[in-house]
């Protein structure tokens, strides 16, 4: 079984300061990990993904995440927050060994990011 824990339900930062959204995962195998962002009343947009290549993954809009197997973590960071980053962020895990017919995403409960002016 696989699971994801997002350690903070709400994070508030000032514009221009760094962002850190924390995620820990549990998986019987080396997982595929994703971060998705959801703006109000919108669907989910992929920020970045890790699939056993480089452990430091760069995504869109200046976000990046580092896969740390020893800590079972996949924290999302950004050096400088922008007002447009305010949204809900989901850490997601899937089993890369599963075939397309059996791949399901397991979502964390989400972290609401607020960016203060």
């Amino acid at each position, binding site marked *: 079984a696989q699971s994801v824990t997002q350690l903070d339900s709400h994070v508030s930062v000032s514009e221009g300061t760094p962002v850190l959204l924390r995620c820990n995962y549990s998986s019987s195998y080396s997982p*595929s990990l*994703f971060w*998705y962002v959801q703006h109000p009343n*919108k*669907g*989910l*947009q*992929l920020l970045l*993904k890790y*699939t*056993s290549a480089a452990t430091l993954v760069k995504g869109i809009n200046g976000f990046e995440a580092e896969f740390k197997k020893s800590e079972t973590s996949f924290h999302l960071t950004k050096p400088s927050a922008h007002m447009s980053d305010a949204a809900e962020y*989901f850490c997601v895990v*899937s*089993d*890369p*060994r*599963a*075939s*397309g*017919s*059996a*791949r*399901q*995403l*397991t*979502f*964390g*409960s*989400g972290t609401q990011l607020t960016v203060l002016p």
Partner: protein
Amino acid sequence: DAGVTQSPTHLIKTRGQQVTLRCSPKSGHDTVSWYQQALGQGPQFIFQYYEEEERQRGNFPDRFSGHQFPNYSSELNVNALLLGDSALYLCASSFGTSGGNTIYFGEGSWLTVV
């Protein structure tokens, strides 16, 4: 290139009624999954369709059913609606069987049951 498209975007139904939601996958994708996202929660996996068959199912009752057509589009049907079925229903598509393939989401269908 159109991404994942869903219809309708919003709908209101009465308890006990039935609803059908529709999804067209991203061009070139052959696998469609459906997720339910209740207010304030993360999406929950309902089921996945591949080659016109339900391949995997999450913890949802039989009231939730689906279909995939030869053109890979899909429908989600929910019978005997309950107030608790009110949620955002998300369709996701992907291609192939590799576990690392990217999954793309539509903007969802908001269902309100009154």
